């Protein structure tokens, strides 16, 4: 050793770092939570596998799907799409002013920022299906309560991501526009909006993807869409008709997901860098050249408006198509927006009736339900991750060399993700009866596919140069994976584990609505008997748990950075 160390004894183990302590504490807490949940839910591998057997025999009875009632199924599927579209659109429109108020660089006043931020995060507090159930009680059955629930709940994510996009806008153009004497509002529209717009549209598309899933389950509580059809078929034991409806959901969800990811890719991956253009297809290169020629020509002719380049055509065309779809949605959905006007005060009243929350009447059931929800979330997360990790490795292009394996895994993941979790849960409950086991099982399967996709993305983002260095010293593929890939991907993956747990906690609180265990059952029950104060207590408890997990998550992410 060098003399710099002085008299200190040479150490051969690295000093313990705060990071490692944090990691150990989290891992222990997570494993402890898992073990406790597993034991108290009376889970056993046996019940698990027998459950899967029940599901298999139910799926056997579902085949072949029966499309004889296809008119009804199709119109319910379209209603699902229209509901998601309207809900997302309304939410995005509401979020524009909210986000400009919430972004540091555009807010008129810090106090406004605080209020907007607070409102945005509050809207996420209650799961949409619970909002929908509440609204159904006030506004009666139909798509309107579903659309309202989607619109309100989406504000949380859309508003947050819109504000982030605005804050990421470069400050120099804003200063430049201010310096010519423009007003604040003009400056924001001319210099910040164009920078944030692509990312805002991508956010709305992504949320539409999520909302399609949501609107296909809202029917379970009577809030319109295909979920109603699925539940009706299962209740009347018409399993083949149920599968027909489920397969329509699957087609809709998968189609929208493919469309949205394509659009988002072209919005966000767009790059005017020549190198990036060169990598694109010959056709797109031709378009770029054609556009450049059009632009030059227009300038030479001293035209005063931009020419119709393919880029501009594409942009305007998509805008027009989107507008048509939204208008069609508003026309076709049976949604008495104005007819329901006299009922809106009731809506506010019911929301007011949640207060003051009454924790005492159903105290024991409340505690039991909450505990069960948390346990379901832990078990589903633990088991799901166990399955997700190997799947993720198989789905990573930079780890598995065989393209067919990667592609096959990715397709399986995409297909499995096509059925929303509450629908999986409904089917499992039909197969295995009421209780936490079918709910856990359903959530586990959904977690596995969801987390596998997230992990695969994290693995693919790993910097390749350390890997090459290890291969250069003669490491085996396994050694290289453990020493170069894992440590790089670990922080991202840990962050995602927390995120998955967060998502599962939210989900496990609503599983009970379809009889899958947890607090959701009590929630629906309290609404049925109009004990809104108890409903309020449950909603607040859910909010507290979800919020606590979110806080822990962001704290840990900061510590790991």
């Amino acid at each position: 050793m060098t003399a710099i160390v002085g008299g200190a004894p040479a150490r051969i183990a690295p000093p313990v770092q705060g990071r490692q302590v944090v990691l150990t504490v989290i891992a222990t807490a997570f494993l402890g939570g898992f073990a406790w949940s597993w034991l108290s839910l009376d889970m056993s591998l046996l019940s698990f596998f027998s459950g899967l057997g029940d599901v298999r025999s139910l799926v056997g009875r579902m085949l072949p799907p029966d499309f004889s009632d296809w008119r009804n199924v199709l119109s319910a599927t379209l209603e699902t799409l229209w509901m998601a579209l309207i809900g997302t659109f309304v939410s995005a429109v509401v979020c524009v002013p909210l986000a400009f108020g919430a972004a540091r660089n555009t807010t008129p006043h810090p106090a406004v920022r605080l209020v907007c931020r607070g409102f945005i995060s509050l809207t996420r507090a209650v799961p949409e299906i619970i909002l929908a159930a509440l609204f159904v009680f006030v506004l009666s059955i139909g798509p309107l309560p579903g659309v309202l629930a989607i619109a309100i709940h989406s504000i949380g994510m859309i508003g947050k991501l819109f504000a982030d996009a605005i804050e990421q806008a470069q400050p120099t153009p804003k200063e430049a526009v201010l310096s010519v004497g423009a007003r604040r509002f003009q400056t924001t529209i001319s210099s910040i909006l164009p920078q944030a717009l692509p990312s805002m549209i991508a956010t709305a598309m992504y949320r539409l993807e999520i909302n399609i899933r949501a609107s296909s389950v809202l029917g379970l509580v009577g809030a319109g869409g295909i979920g109603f059809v699925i539940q009706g078929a299962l209740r009347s034991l018409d399993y083949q008709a149920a599968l027909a409806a489920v397969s329509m959901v699957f087609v809709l969800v998968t189609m929208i997901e493919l469309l949205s990811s394509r659009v988002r890719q072209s919005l966000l991956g767009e790059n005017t860098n020549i190198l990036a253009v060169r990598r694109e297809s010959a056709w797109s290169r031709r378009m770029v050249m054609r556009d450049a020629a059009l632009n030059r020509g227009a300038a030479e002719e001293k035209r005063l408006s931009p020419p119709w380049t393919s880029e501009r055509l594409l942009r305007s065309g998509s805008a027009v198509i989107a507008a048509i779809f939204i208008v069609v949605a508003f026309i076709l959905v049976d949604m008495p927006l104005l007819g329901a006007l006299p009922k809106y005060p009731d809506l506010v009243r019911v929301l007011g009736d949640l207060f003051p929350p009454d924790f005492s009447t159903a105290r024991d059931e409340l505690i039991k339900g909450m505990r069960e929800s948390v346990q379901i979330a832990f078990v589903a997360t633990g088991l799901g991750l166990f399955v997700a990790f190997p799947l993720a490795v198989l789905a990573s292009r930079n780890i598995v060399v065989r393209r067919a394996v990667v592609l096959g895994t990715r397709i399986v993941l995409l297909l499995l993700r096509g059925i929303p979790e509450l629908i999986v849960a409904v089917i499992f409950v039909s197969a295995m009866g009421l209780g936490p086991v079918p709910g856990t099982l359903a959530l586990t399967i959904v977690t596995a596919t969801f987390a596998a996709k997230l992990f695969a993305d994290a693995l693919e983002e790993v910097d390749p140069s350390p890997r090459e260095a290890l291969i250069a010293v003669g490491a085996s593929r396994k050694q290289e994976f453990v020493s170069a890939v894992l440590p790089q991907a670990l922080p991202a993956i840990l962050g995602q584990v927390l995120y998955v747990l967060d998502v599962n906690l939210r989900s496990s609180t609503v599983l009970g609505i379809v009889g899958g265990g947890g607090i959701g059952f009590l929630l629906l029950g309290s609404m049925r008997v109009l004990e809104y104060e108890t409903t309020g207590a449950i909603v607040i408890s859910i909010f507290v748990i979800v919020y606590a997990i979110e806080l822990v998550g962001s704290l840990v992410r900061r510590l790991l950075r």
Partner: protein
Amino acid sequence: MTSSPWGSDSGAAVSVASLSKRFPNGTLALDDVSFDVPEGQVLALIGLSGSGKSTLLRILNGLHRPTGGTARVLGVEVGGARGAQLRDVRRHVGFVFQQFGLVGRATCMENVLMGTLGRVRGPRLGVRTYPVALRREALDQLERVGLASAAFQRADTLSGGQMQRVAIARSLMQHPALLLADEPVASLDPESSAQVLELIGRIAREDSRTVICTLHQVELALGWSDRIVGLQAGRLVLDRPATELSLDSVMEVYRRTGGEAPVETPQLQTA
């Protein structure tokens, strides 16, 4: 204090008296600076990094507020101006930034048109939201900076020198009585730098506009400007007609570091 040959107030586009600026974090960026700039003069402002050049220009455009002294721009005391009055001064003062300040996703024409936002009312997004007469003028200004053919190209497809020329065209849309330029060529290669400086100089002389421009390349400043003002640690240490100065005497500004020099004075990189 160095005596100034331009002492009189009459016809001064800019008049700065005992100007100081202390930032909330305690940094004293400007310390008792006084000078006048008569109309039509091209003034080069030089000094080490951190000497307060940007702060001075930003105060003149109301982007910072002084903590002491006065700064009159086109007859208005900008330190006390707010709202409509401040916007009115800004409307007549062009500002060229080192980082151009273009909206990359917008076309060059739209960026140039943004120079009129102080005159037109209401929010504008897209070239077609501006009146035809302004669009025609924007094309003329782009032609003047030699970029008419790029009018409908997105600004982020241009080179740095071209972007700065678009930014200058945007300032020209203001018909500015005073042009402030903060290191307009610092992120450009030598050839583009020469082009851009030549452009600013030509504009100043053809329309007899007042220009205050901060520069790092001293030898460029000498041949280009009428007058050179040097700042050091927030204090005015040099103020002479460019013709009376030699390169060596200007370099003094970069060499002498008084007792109140910034703590982390960087190594001098000769321009």
